[in-house]
């Protein structure tokens, strides 16, 4: 069984996160490796994520977009909790192969 059939709610959240892009790179935060944990308990989604830099001015606006997009794409959910953590630090190795391909030409 794959994610979609085994845990459709979580899959729905991941699908929404795929639509949240880093505006400069045009790459999703999933492919950048910024999402550390996604859980859905009842109608609440809980997301643990990080940013590529602790000094990023877009931190709050990306978190806002995460909440909006997850709720917009998953009408069965009533709330989204997002926690930004700095440990473990993000590293480029966390990027998906797709992202690496785009950035390395």
């Amino acid at each position, binding site marked *: 069984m794959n994610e979609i059939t085994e845990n459709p709610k979580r899959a729905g959240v991941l699908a929404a996160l795929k639509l949240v892009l880093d*505006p400069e790179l045009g790459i999703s935060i999933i492919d950048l490796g910024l999402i550390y944990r996604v859980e859905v308990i009842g109608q609440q989604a809980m997301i643990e994520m990080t940013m590529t830099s602790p000094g990023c001015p877009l931190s*709050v606006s990306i978190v806002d977009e995460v909440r909006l997009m997850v709720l917009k794409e998953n009408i069965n959910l009533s709330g989204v909790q997002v926690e930004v953590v700095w440990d473990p630090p993000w590293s480029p190795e966390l990027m998906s192969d797709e992202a690496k391909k785009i950035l390395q030409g």
Partner: protein
Amino acid sequence: MDLKPNYRLPLMAMGMLSLITALWGGIQRLGWELPTLTITLPAHHGPLMVGAFLGTVIGLERAVALARLWGYLGPLMTGVGGILMITGAAPLIVAQALISAGSFMLILVFVAFTQRQFHWFLVIMGLGALSWFVGNLLWLQGSAVYQIVWWWMGYLLLTIAGERMELGRMLFLSQTKQMLMLISVAISIVGMMLTSWDADSGARLLGLGMITSALWLGHFDVARRTVKQKGLPRFIAINLLAGYFWLAVSGLLLITYGADFSGLRYDAVLHAFFLGFVFSMIFGHAPVIFPAVLGRGMLYRPLFYIHVVLLHFVLLLRVGGGLTEEIWLRDIGGLLSAITLVIFVINTVLAVLAHARATK
């Protein structure tokens, strides 16, 4: 606890007011007739642009990144410093002290970032803030702007270089390639510091650091990849790459002429750097940063290319006119560059309003 977006508006407004009045003074300084707002405004063009406008906007974006109330003290102080310079409501030294204090706060903000996670690119950006602070202190204790402007240039160069090095991690560049950029940054820092003892040698060394930084960025920056995309990522990348061109031009002029304070060459160097390089960064990132800072969305529109194309065209007139000693051409380029920045502000505001209408 963070400052809510609505409360950040007055800070942004102070920064934008400093920009508009700085342009007013700048146009007057070129000899164009405009109603006089205050007698000292033309003389304050540089400090208003760097300390009150750029300092407030950059301070504000980093305060948003920090998401703590104390982080907003910096842009508050530089914003108020700008208002005092514009109005002359207090002796200049008060404005200078406020801007100096605001720049010190930016250093503290970067220290706070390194406590979240340590990265060398944050140290470089923090050294940028330190450069700005040192330049402000020298200005406060009586140095003329032309004597210390190199420190202000270093501030922006290091801030931007650090930012680009942060993104550069995604390219998995070799240690050697990363070292080349660090060396360019180091050369720039040494040059900038040297200007306080030997302005000419220091400026030339700073110019060398600028050229090598520009070559590195033009070749290795992530913009070389994202320029192949469409829409906003491509728009940002085009602005970045154009900015690196002007950084190289600034460097070349500095190497060639050193700390030449004869009006035209000095004007050419400063505006190649501050307009061509720094404002290219601002134009490119405005569709991303303004919404993040103000909590209001902004629709990216291809018509933004209008102010982008204008910027480079008018700068060619200005710098070309200055270097060929065709003062009339320099003056027209200068007037048009001010108009270009006003068009940029209008386009930005309209895009924010368009987004608000679209999402009602």
